[in-house]
């Protein structure tokens, strides 16, 4: 009885309820997009993008522009540019992406050091903050989740075709370039709305781990697309609760839970499943 009460204790706090809803939605959202990130070998793009968005967030904070507006525009522009650089396969594209996004990240830190109010705000963006989750954040995450869910479901086959076989998709008249732009925009916006909960430094892990775990469990694309958001949401749910009881950072605890789930699956799944993960490129 007391254990059950203890477990429910954090739910007495409104901030925890908000954080809980936001984190669970964020986990599901990152799980869906993570499937494309993992299968297209774009995990370094997710990583770079979150750093780029941080620069935009810092700049908008310093110039007192609305966070979603400032960081959003910045994030979408960098997302589309990164997508184009990556697609052209110019030699050194990852180097270029690395330089631009880390420069944006460093610029953001410098701006906040010089003009920002406190260290705390930097830490909140880097590592996420449950305390800081407002109803506006939840509204934003919900809106993006609905939009991403609708787009992925509605254009499911086109996304699958363009991801699996871009060459033949082009030949068959699919607008592969447009699909890639839509993916990059969805990824940028997702990073934007979830980074205040999970944190800039950890968000790319939430894009990769649930999807990679789902890949081990199934050999079917549709099932992977269903499993990955469930794994993401459950990891966030469990991680949030643990973070309260262990008094650890929410973002870090969520990622540790996800890593534990991945490791357990890896150990239990057998050799063939392990090979499936080995076959994922650029992880």
């Amino acid at each position, binding site marked *: 009885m007391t254990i059950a009460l203890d477990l429910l204790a954090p739910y007495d706090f409104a901030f925890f309820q908000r954080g809980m809803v936001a984190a669970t939605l964020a986990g599901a959202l990152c799980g869906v997009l993570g499937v494309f990130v993992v*299968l297209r070998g774009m995990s370094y793009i997710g990583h770079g993008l979150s750093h780029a968005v941080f620069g935009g967030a810092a700049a908008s904070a310093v110039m007192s522009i609305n966070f979603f507006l400032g960081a959003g525009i910045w994030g979408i522009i960098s997302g589309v540019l990164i997508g184009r650089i990556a697609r052209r396969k110019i030699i050194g594209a990852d180097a270029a992406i690395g330089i631009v996004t880390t420069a944006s990240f460093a610029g953001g830190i410098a701006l906040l050091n010089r003009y920002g109010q406190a260290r705390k705000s930097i830490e909140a963006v880097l590592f996420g903050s449950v305390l800081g989750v407002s109803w506006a954040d939840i509204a934003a995450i919900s809106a993006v989740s609905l939009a991403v869910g609708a787009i992925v*479901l*509605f*254009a*499911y*086959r*086109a996304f*699958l*075709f363009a991801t*699996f*076989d871009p*060459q*033949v998709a*082009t*030949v*068959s*008249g*699919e607008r592969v370039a447009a699909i890639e732009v839509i993916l990059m925009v969805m990824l940028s916006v997702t990073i934007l709305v979830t980074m205040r909960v999970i944190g800039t430094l950890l968000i790319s892990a939430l894009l990769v781990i649930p999807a990679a775990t789902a*890949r081990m469990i*199934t*050999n*079917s*694309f*549709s099932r*992977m*697309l269903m499993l990955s958001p469930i794994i993401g949401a459950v990891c966030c749910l469990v991680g949030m609760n643990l973070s309260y009881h262990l008094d650890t950072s929410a973002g870090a605890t969520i990622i540790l839970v996800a890593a534990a789930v991945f490791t357990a699956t890896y150990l239990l799944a057998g050799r063939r499943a392990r090979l*499936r993960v080995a*076959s*994922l490129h650029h992880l």
Partner: protein
Amino acid sequence: MHVRRGEFVGIVGPSGSGKTTLLKAITGSVPPTRGTIEIADGIRVGYVPQVESVDWNFPITVGEVLTMTRTRQRWPRTSPSERVEMANVLDGLGLSGLQGRHIRELSGGQQQRVFVARAMFGKPDILILDEPTSGVDVRTRHEILHLLRDLHSKGSTILLTTHDLNGLASHLPRLMCLNREVIADGSPRETLIPEVLERTYGAPLHVLEHGGMPIVLDHDYTSSEVLRDTERQMRSERETRQ
């Protein structure tokens, strides 16, 4: 060059001769630098990529490979009518009951046929195959040749590129030899001759005949007395025919 409905045409030529570029131009993925490409209105192309270009580790089942091309159909669900159509296409290609299998779990011949099935599922007016026998074993090559002949006899129009002169090209009704320009166009007996092959490949190649079919020798057999006699005899026969 013209390809008419119901034809079965192979394009041969060395690497860099423009085979793939020609296919890309036909399918509209690159614009032609010179000349024009005319495709009758509403022609649907079914494109079968090289087996080597497919990501075999992608999490995807045979059924998913087939349905992905029908992007007009929204939502992931496969409709009952699609299920019936899919079963028909798979049956026709000897892939019955494999819908739920991952593409990696199939044999070489089945793997190639899945991509032919995907193209056929789009009810194409013309089937275009890029090097359908590259990277496959002899048995699979036989399977593919039989399959394509079968599809052709049922009325499909087929255009393919190949490096495989004896295993595939010499079995086709019509061949085009390409090296930046069309060097010859006709039946294998007309196109697989030393004069054309030398201009196409830039190296002397010898041709023998076996059971009425030309066999191209891609080794240097110039020292062989027997070979020279056979070639001389074949040339004189050809001249008398003409």
